[in-house]
């Protein structure tokens, strides 16, 4: 098992010679993504403020970059890449399904309450 690591990331675009080298490669990738997030967060470019599917484009970019980071942490630091497919699916799909379900319900409800506050003659600022 010690030498059974898969040493490719980005679908084989980057191949590493050893596991140690792959770890440093992934660190560089994660650092770049974090740096991009921080720079976008500080400067907040006006072009990314457009609304896409109910949220600012910038926020969608943040969320997608976060999921990309989560993918590399799980796949390469937690060695999910080297586990068998069944274990991987058991862990990942269970979590993803339940989390998506929860987020959908709560955000839908939150948005609804907000609309009642705004349009429903409920006074909250007095």
């Amino acid at each position: 098992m010690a030498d059974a690591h898969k040493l490719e990331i980005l679908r084989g675009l980057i191949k590493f010679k050893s596991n140690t080298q792959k770890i440093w490669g992934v660190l560089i990738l994660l650092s770049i993504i974090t740096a991009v997030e921080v720079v976008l967060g500080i400067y907040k470019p006006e072009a990314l403020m457009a609304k896409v599917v109910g949220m600012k484009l910038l926020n969608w970019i943040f969320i997608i970059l976060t999921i990309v980071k989560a993918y590399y942490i799980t796949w390469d630091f937690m060695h999910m890449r080297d586990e068998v497919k069944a274990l991987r699916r058991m862990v990942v799909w269970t979590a993803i399904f339940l989390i998506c379900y929860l987020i959908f319900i709560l955000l839908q409800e939150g948005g609804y309450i907000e609309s009642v506050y705004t349009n429903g003659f409920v006074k909250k600022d007095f």
Partner: protein
Amino acid sequence: MDTTVANTGTEGKTWGGGNEPLKSSYGKMMMWFFIVSDALTFSGFLAAYGFSRFKFIDSWPIADEVFTHIPFFHGNYPMIYVAFMTFVLIMSSVTMVLAVDAGHHMKKNKVIWYMFLTIIGGLIFVGSQAWEWGTFIKGDYGAVQTKGGNILQLVDNEGHRVAVRDIALDAHGERVQHERKNGLWFVDEAVLPSYTVDEVYNGLVANPNVLVRTQTINEEGHKTVLSREESLKQLKNNGKLVVEGANLHVNEYGTSLFADFFFFITGFHGFHVFSGVVINIIIFFNVILGTYERRGSYEMVEKVGLYWHFVDLVWVFVFTFFYLV
């Protein structure tokens, strides 16, 4: 790879614990299951945060204006410190995975060294978290809470924040804190704020360039600044309590829900980091004592490694939803 449990005499039987379904040892699989359940716990918290935020979408505090400090430096540096914290945690994840890798190759000294660095990284992170909390609790400009629980902040003509303590003028009507010894012995009162609303109002009257900023977000995504007349009127009629800093009851940065979620979620995460550091220390000493060398497998390092990476994983999401989005 050997399992770490003692032999049970049922090896080879399907449910005996000796064989490895999914080619993963018992301990590692259980660690994965624990991580899934813990991930769902954190998602519950973050989704609840999202719920409250969607509920108050037009008045939620802007994180860039809340977390602007760096230790030992004055000035306005949004996000820099928390980016540093993120980097520290990712770095300690890297040293952890290097320790696991060294364990696979049975290099005891390398494992010791990398585990040590991981623990240091964890401690730096927890310390930074504590500092972040301290700064948030202390607050910086102060604000006035209205009767409806909303927050009124002060800004000058150019939109720069003005601190309550810089403008407050004596209102000659000071009341002292009620104590058991000088009033009703069975009634308590919390410590009074350093300033009264009247003092802040007098200060506002005396400083014609100061305006009131409400917590409502306008179309451009900024907080609404009231006109001079509106400012005076709003503070006079609705101001109830001067708030400095944040706690579970009040929050000078905006809705108190923001502070509640901040304390709860980053606190729960910080507690995970702390327990991760404790577990890492235990494993660190086990490695030094040669426990895993004798066992012939460093799988235990791999298992705490999984937990440690998970803590990092959660932070990545907390960072996004508290500081970026």
